[in-house]
């Protein structure tokens, strides 16, 4: 009689099975070819949902321009990494860099991380009585999300907002209920500005939140903030724009209060990239970057490529696409509320893509057959 719930368990079991086996939808271990052939696409990829709007735009434009069809499944960063490890896709995409353990688990050898755009995470809140955006410092944001600051008229908040009448409302913290790259970036920022946060709850795609409600997805968090006076949460910049939410000005490492915006995020990426060594693997965090006009909660989102490609034809298509995305493709970023890479960094990355190793003549003839 209680078959319904058994069915749920069935579904869970089925989901697990496919996940453990790397979601191999007809992918053979020998190469990535079968998956793409089945879908009629030239290249297949899977991974992060956050850059999906701009990736979709890119793949569409690029198919018109170069005639190369790319099929991308926005199944989440974790899923993208798993599929890349199992070689069921030609490239992966992730909002958090792969860990060393994950790199070691990749069956196709070393993985290149190529940043594509800069994501911006805004701290959004709902206080209709405020005429201008509230100012927050890193330690105040940490205090709020740790549950140490519980009222909007807390003296610590008033101290950085002189002349502003803050309401006495309770603060309601809203966070993501599911694991997400947005949470990773936000907690990365809090860990870098607050030692207490770093100790607990720390940095990750999913945390043990000291306070607050979990809402599903950026849209769920936005809806909850919009509905509840006194709510505060973190969402990707695009959701602030779409939902007309108020977002806090955050104090950057130079002491200035900066609004979340594409230009401020690009500035942050530029400052961070300037410090990177020439042989960087780009698995780096760019939160709380130096610079007067940088916004502190920003992050790269990465394409994940095998350094040693097994199919020369695909390798060329992939490298050509990535080069295009790093140059012409960057122009699409601001319209979709993510920040373009700084030009200097894009040039460095383009050179890096050239280092993709294509297979020898034998492999080429094998794939031609």
């Amino acid at each position, binding site marked *: 009689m209680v078959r319904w719930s058994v069915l*749920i368990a069935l579904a869970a079991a089925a989901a697990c099975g496919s996940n453990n086996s790397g979601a191999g939808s007809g992918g053979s271990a020998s190469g990535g070819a079968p998956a793409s052939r089945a879908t009629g696409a030239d290249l297949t990829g899977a991974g992060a949902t956050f850059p999906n709007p701009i990736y979709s735009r890119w793949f569409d434009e690029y198919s018109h321009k170069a005639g190369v069809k790319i099929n991308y499944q926005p199944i989440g960063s974790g899923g993208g990494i798993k599929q890349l490890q199992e070689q069921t896709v030609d490239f992966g995409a992730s909002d958090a860099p792969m860990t060393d353990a994950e790199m070691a688990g990749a069956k196709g050898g070393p993985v290149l991380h190529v940043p594509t755009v800069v994501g911006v995470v805004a701290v959004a809140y709902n206080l209709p009585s405020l005429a201008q955006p509230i100012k927050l410092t890193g330690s105040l944001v940490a205090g709020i999300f740790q549950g140490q600051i519980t009222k909007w008229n807390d003296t610590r908040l008033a101290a950085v907002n002189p002349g502003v009448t803050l309401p006495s409302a309770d603060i309601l913290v809203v966070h993501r209920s599911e694991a997400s790259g947005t949470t990773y970036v936000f907690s990365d920022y809090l860990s870098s500005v607050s030692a207490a946060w770093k100790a607990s709850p*720390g940095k990750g795609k*999913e945390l043990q939140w000291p306070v607050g409600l979990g809402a599903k997805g950026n849209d769920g968090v936005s809806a909850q903030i919009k509905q509840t006076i006194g709510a505060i949460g973190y969402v990707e910049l695009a959701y602030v724009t779409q939902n007309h939410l108020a977002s806090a000005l955050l104090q950057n490492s130079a002491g200035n209060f900066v609004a979340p915006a594409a230009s401020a995020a690009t500035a942050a990426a530029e400052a961070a990239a300037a410090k990177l060594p020439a042989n960087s693997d780009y698995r780096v965090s760019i939160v709380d970057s130096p610079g007067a006009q940088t916004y502190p909660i920003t992050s790269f989102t990465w394409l994940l490529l095998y350094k040693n490609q097994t199919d020369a034809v695909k390798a060329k298509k992939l490298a050509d696409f990535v080069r295009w995305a790093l140059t012409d493709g960057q122009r699409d970023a601001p319209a979709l509320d993510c920040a373009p890479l700084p030009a200097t960094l894009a040039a460095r990355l383009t050179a890096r893509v050239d280092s993709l190793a294509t297979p020898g003549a034998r492999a080429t003839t094998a794939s031609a057959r």
Partner: protein
Amino acid sequence: MSDASAAPAASRLTPSTSGAHRAANIEGRSAGDRIYRWTTTAFAMVVPILLCVIAWEVFAAGWPALRQFGLGFFTTSDWDPVKGNFGAAPALFGTIVSSLLALVIATPLAIGVAVFLSEFAPRAMRQPVGFFVDLLAAIPSVVYGLWGILVLVPFLRAHVMPFFKDTLHLGATPFFSGPAYGPSMLAGGVILAIMILPYISAVTREVLVAVPRSQREAALALGATRWEMIWDAVLPFARSGIIGGVILGLGRALGETMAVTMVIGNRHEISASLLAPGYTMASVIANEFAEATSDLHVASLMAVGAGLFVVTIIVNVIARWLVWRTGGARPA
């Protein structure tokens, strides 16, 4: 399913018993009969085998978490993917509380609907009203969830929660303490109640209609009012069927995922307050599975799935026992 698979097994034994040669001949005469019998047996066996395989898979996949945390997995509240500590007590608690809350709200409503439709409603109303109640079951869960976020939760926060807290002065009791943000155990229970109502009412209506006419006439002949007739003669007669319907609803509530996830607040914490956010086992799996990368995290989610499996089995057993018991005590 056990009946279906047992019957052919029993008949297979008959040819070997002496004196049943004729029966064997009759059975053996047609190859088609034998093929038919084996095919249906195979079909009947597939389901229990599949169930066992799935149960085995879920437990095996969850075993690393159960080995690491022991039974403490179901009694501790820590859920910290960063440090790799997992305890499913809040989810277990939330699953049971939200489902029971849903039953408490839905059962009287559903029985009321069913009694009205089977006893009081004019003939012209029965079909359309029944149809609309049944239609509630056809609405996709995610639509309930969206409606929950956009309509139900704001309504609960603006009217129902203040009513309990302030008008009834229950804010001082632990059950309605704390701030009323909206997404909460209460919201989860209410949305589940709406979702399981059609199941309970459909089953109840069928059993009420099946109550013999003589039962009603006898009660009326003894001078019972219409109310007394329904309360004393019809409902007790249908009791075991109604309990069956309630248990069907409970089963649905235990496993419901999407709508609950969207309104319950998704917080790994046990709180006595119905206004506080909670979590359910199905919601945890739905929320975290896609992005769970560490093996222990995945194993913990599978262990939650295994726990849900056990909870449903226990509920099923209790349900069968209740139906059997009340069925035995049915007035003759």
